[in-house]
């Protein structure tokens, strides 16, 4: 597309408009054209942003088709966002409450939490800075951790259920988490745990937290996590968390093809009340033979990118 030429044509046409007599036919034509384009805009926009992983299926592939009943106590499988891969990209922060300056998206910071948020320098969101000035832990390929893995640039997940765990494999950096389902409790203080299981090591602060889960009904699995290392960010917009972070993760199997995920942030040191970061995010079950793409943070490649692009772009 020749943007330069196209822009020029628009300007020339605008100039000519002043010279012609604007009869009613011209006005009606212009209004009709605007109406058509306005109606088409969402379709154009959707096509531009739509990515399809080879072999993946999305809700748009099955218009009007009703899914079968949900299996009981089963969230296993390979999952992708039901409306396309781009749905998981949360450049400006957690999808349910992005950092966009809108009053309704203001987080309930405590004074300590606001101080931590102000100290973070993200490259996106309402408080963004040029990339050369960021203190985001991710560019150097430091661990993204949980929940940022699902609140930033989220992609495929594969969920595996065993007799003692729900294991989630994440596309990004080929990371995984274990959610214990053997009845153990969260350690009340991850630093000094009153540990119940002799053969397991006590948990220390972790990038991925410590997680236990349970079925609250036949179609809803809830996980609680704590024991987080406070160096990670919650999302791409620099929302902070303290070492008191507690996360509630809800997976609801809606039907045979769909799973909804909700993430609630509960961090009394940094936030005055719990808040929802991901709200019933719909995923669609993929073929068991779908290959999850490789996506790695590579320090040497990042260094070259910063040298050739990020640093000179910020000068």
């Amino acid at each position, binding site marked *: 597309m020749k943007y*330069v030429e196209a822009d020029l044509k628009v300007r020339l*046409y605008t100039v000519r408009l002043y010279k012609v007599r604007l009869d009613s036919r011209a006005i009606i034509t212009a209004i009709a054209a605007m109406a058509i384009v306005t109606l088409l805009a969402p379709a154009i926009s959707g096509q531009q*942003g739509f990515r399809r992983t080879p072999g993946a299926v999305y809700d748009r592939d099955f218009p009007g088709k009703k899914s079968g009943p949900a299996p009981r106590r089963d969230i296993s499988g390979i999952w992708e966002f039901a409306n396309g*891969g781009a749905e998981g990209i949360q450049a400006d922060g957690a999808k349910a409450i992005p950092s966009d300056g809108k009053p309704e998206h203001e987080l309930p910071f405590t004074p300590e939490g606001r101080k931590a948020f102000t100290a973070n320098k993200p490259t996106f969101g309402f408080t963004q800075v040029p990339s050369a000035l*960021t203190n985001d832990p*991710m560019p150097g390929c430091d661990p993204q951790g949980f929940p940022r893995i699902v609140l930033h*640039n989220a992609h495929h997940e594969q969920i595996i259920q065993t007799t003692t765990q729900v294991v989630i494999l994440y596309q990004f950096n080929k990371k995984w988490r274990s959610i214990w389902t053997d009845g153990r409790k969260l350690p009340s203080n991850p630093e000094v745990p009153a540990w119940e299981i002799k053969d397991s090591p006590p948990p220390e602060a972790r990038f991925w937290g410590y997680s236990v889960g349970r079925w609250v009904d036949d179609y809803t699995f809830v996980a609680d996590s704590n024991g987080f290392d406070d160096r990670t960010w919650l999302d791409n917009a620099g929302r902070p968390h303290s070492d008191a972070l507690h996360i509630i993760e809800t997976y609801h199997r809606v039907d045979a093809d769909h799973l909804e995920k909700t993430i609630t942030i509960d961090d009394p040191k940094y936030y005055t009340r719990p808040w929802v970061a991901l709200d019933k995010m719909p995923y669609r079950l993929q073929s068991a033979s779908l290959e999850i793409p490789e996506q790695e943070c590579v320090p040497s*490649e990042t260094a070259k990118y910063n040298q*050739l692009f990020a640093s000179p772009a910020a000068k």
Partner: protein
Amino acid sequence: MRRMLVTLASCVVLLSSALAAHHATAVFDLGKRLTLTGTVTEWFWANPHCLLRFDVKNDNGETTHWVAETQAPPNMTPFGWSKQSFAVGDQIKVTLEPVKNGQPLGRILQVLLPDGKTLVAGAPAIPAGGAQQ
């Protein structure tokens, strides 16, 4: 009829700019478009962003070394891009959104290849600066 077509084209161009501009990043001159013809010197298929390096000669024979980014490989393959998309020496026509500071840097919107095919970069939904993979 001609009047209607021109009006329609104007609306499309104006709306396209609006659609592209909602992906805000700090370093880019949002909405600005440059179309450059040049020769590929490197295609770096990498994280967090792929980089296409190419040389552009002006009318005086002076060469500018451009570096243009795309998103990470897993975000490009669904749009038909690959490690083999470019070879050194390829003559290409790149449409990009340049950075604000005037350096020969930008993010790719599309590239016209020597064989006449066009690679489109898709929605520039992911931030720059290594913060995104």
